C-alpha cells in the first residue's frame, strides 16, 4: 500500500513540480515585515471585510443564531462605512434559515456539505447533501476531499469524487477543502491542489481547511496553494480562487495574507470573487481596527456584537 501511495503522488508531482519547503518558509516570513499604515491599512481592512465568509459551524447552531449571523454579515457595524461580507457559511440544515434573510442581497450563502468535516460518508449520501443544500438556496458549496483515499494513493478516486460533487452543485460555486493539516507535507498540498484544479471550473475555489482540526490555515499552506493557482493559471489560463479558513483571527494576520496574495497572484486576485477568508472571529477584529483608524481610540472587543471581554 505505501509504495502505491508514494508512486501515485510522486507521478503527479513529477508533472507539476515539487515544493521547496525552506523557500516557502523564508518567503512567508518576509510578508510580516511589510508596513501597511493609514489609508492603505483602511483599504486592506475594508477589502478583508468584503472577503469574509462569516462562518458558524457548531453543533449548537440554531435558526436564531444563523439569523443574527446573517444580520451581522449584511450590517457589519453601525457608524462604519464598510462593505458587507462576501457570504455566510453554515451547515446544510441552516441554509433555508439563512436564505430568508440574505437571499437577494450581495451576501451569498455558502454551505459546507459532503459529510463535513470528515467526509467519511458514502458518496451517494454526500452528493444528496450537496443537492439538498443547493435546492434550499446555497450559492456556494464547501466540500471536503477524501483524505483517506488521497493518502492511500487513490488519486483518481479523489478526483472523480470532486467531479461528481461539481456536477451535483449545478450553478453553485464549489470550494474544495484539502484539509492541509491532514495532508502532512507541502508536496501533498501542492499535489492535492492540482488534483482539484484539474476538474474545477474558473472561479471555483480551493480551500485550506475545515477549521475543525488543531492546525488550520497558515501562511505557508496559503503560499503553497497560491503558487499552485499561479502555476495552473500560467499553464492553462484557468483562474482558480482561494480560501484560507480557520485560525485567522486578527486583522493583522488578514493583512499579511492579503500581502501574500498581492505579491504572488497580483491585483486580479484581490477581490472576493478570487479570495475569501473563512472565519468567525476575524470580522470583529477587522471592525475594531477600522473603528480605531476612524476615531484614533483603541476599542474594546465587547463593543462589536460579541460577548467576549477578551481578545
Amino acid at each position, binding site marked *: 500500500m505505501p509504495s502505491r501511495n508514494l508512486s501515485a503522488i510522486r507521478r503527479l508531482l513529477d508533472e507539476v513540480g515539487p515544493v521547496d519547503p525552506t523557500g516557502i518558509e523564508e518567503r512567508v516570513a518576509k510578508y510580516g515585515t511589510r508596513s501597511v499604515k493609514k489609508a492603505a491599512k483602511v483599504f486592506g481592512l475594508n477589502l478583508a471585510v468584503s472577503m469574509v465568509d462569516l462562518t458558524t459551524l457548531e453543533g449548537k447552531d440554531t435558526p436564531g443564531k444563523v439569523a443574527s449571523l446573517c444580520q451581522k454579515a449584511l450590517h457589519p457595524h453601525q457608524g462604519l462605512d464598510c462593505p458587507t461580507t462576501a457570504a455566510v457559511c453554515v451547515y446544510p440544515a441552516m441554509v433555508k434559515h439563512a436564505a430568508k434573510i440574505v437571499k437577494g442581497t450581495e451576501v451569498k450563502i455558502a454551505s459546507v456539505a459532503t459529510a463535513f468535516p470528515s467526509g467519511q460518508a458514502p458518496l451517494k449520501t454526500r452528493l444528496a447533501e450537496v443537492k439538498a443544500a443547493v435546492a434550499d438556496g446555497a450559492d456556494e458549496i464547501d466540500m471536503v476531499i477524501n483524505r483517506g483515499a488521497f493518502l492511500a494513493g487513490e488519486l483518481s478516486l479523489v478526483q472523480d469524487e470532486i467531479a461528481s460533487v461539481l456536477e451535483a452543485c449545478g450553478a453553485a460555486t464549489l470550494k474544495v477543502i484539502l484539509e492541509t493539516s491532514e495532508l502532512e507535507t507541502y508536496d501533498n498540498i501542492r499535489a492535492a491542489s492540482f488534483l482539484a484544479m484539474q476538474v474545477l471550473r474558473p472561479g471555483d475555489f480551493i480551500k485550506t481547511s475545515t477549521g475543525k482540526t488543531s492546525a488550520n490555515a497558515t501562511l505557508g499552506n496559503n503560499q503553497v496553494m497560491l503558487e499552485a493557482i499561479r502555476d495552473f493559471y500560467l499553464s492553462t489560463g484557468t483562474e482558480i480562487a482561494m480560501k484560507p479558513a480557520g485560525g485567522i483571527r486578527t486583522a493583522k494576520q488578514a493583512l499579511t495574507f492579503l500581502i501574500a496574495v498581492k505579491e504572488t497572484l497580483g491585483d486580479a486576485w484581490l477581490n472576493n470573487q478570487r479570495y475569501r477568508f473563512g472565519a468567525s472571529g476575524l470580522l470583529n477584529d477587522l471592525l475594531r481596527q477600522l473603528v480605531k483608524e476612524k476615531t484614533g*481610540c483603541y476599542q474594546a472587543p465587547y463593543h462589536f456584537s460579541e460577548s467576549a*471581554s*477578551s*481578545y
Partner: protein
Amino acid sequence: MPLKITKTPKCYVGGAFIRSESGAVSPMHSLSGEFIANIPQCSRKDLRNAVEAAAKAGGWAKRSAYNRGQILYRMAEMLDARASEMADAIAITEADKKTAAAEVQVTIDRMVHYAGWTDKYEALLGSVNPVASSHFNFTVTEPCGIVGIIAADPFPLLGLMSLVLPAITSGNTVVALASSAAPYPAILLGEMLATSDLPAGVVNLLTGKRSDMISTFATHAHISSIAAAVNQTDAITLQQGAAENLKRVSLFDPETHWTSTESQGLDLIRNHLEFKTTWHPVGA
C-alpha cells in the same frame, strides 16, 4: 577581576518580560551620574498590548476573595525576602538609604493591609436595601475590569503600589505606567511579582515617558477606570479622553506623601468598583 554582568531591564507584561515594541530605550543614571542601565521606553502600542494581556487575566476576578488575599500576602512575602535589593534599587535616585528602606517596609505593610481587605470590603460597600414591594433588594459590587494606573515620580515603589493594590484587591487587572524619573524599582517589582503566585496579566508594568502614553490611557475604550498621580495638564487630558467611554478617573496629587496611612483603605478600593442592584421576588 570578574567581568561585570550588565543587566537588561525588561517590563513585566502578561507574565512575561518584554522589551518595548519600538525597541527604544532611555539610559538611566545614578545620583552621581554613573550609567546604570537602559530602561525600555514603552510606546502606546506597548500599552495596547498590555491592555490585551490584562484582558486575558479576567479569571482573577473569579477567584475567591480569600484566595486573592492569600496571593496579595504572598506578594508581601516575596518583597520582604528581597527588601534590601529593592531598597538599593530605590537608592539609585534617593540619597537617603534609610528613606529608601522605609519605603520598602511601608510597601510590604500596605500589601498585607490590602490582603486583609479582599474578603471584607464587600460587606461594607454592599447593602440590603429597604423597598416598598415584596422584593429583596441587594446592592453588590463588581470590579470595573481593566484599570489604568499612572504613578507619581517620587516614591517609585510605594507611589506605584499604593494605586495598584486597591485595584487588584477587588479583582481588577491593571496596566500601570511607573515613575518616569525612577523606573528601576518597577522593573525589579515585576521580577518579584513573577514569583508571587499572582496570575500572569493581573499586573502589567510599563516604563517610559508619560507624554507618549497619557492620551492613549485616556481614550482606550477597554480601560474602564484610571487612577493617576499627575499634574493639572495631564489631568485635563485624562478627563477629556475618559469622557469618550465614561471611564472613572481618580486623581491624586503628584506630591502625595504616600507613607501616610491615609493613602490606603476602603475609599481607594471603591474607586474601581461598579455597583449592581438586584431585585429578587420574595418567596420565589
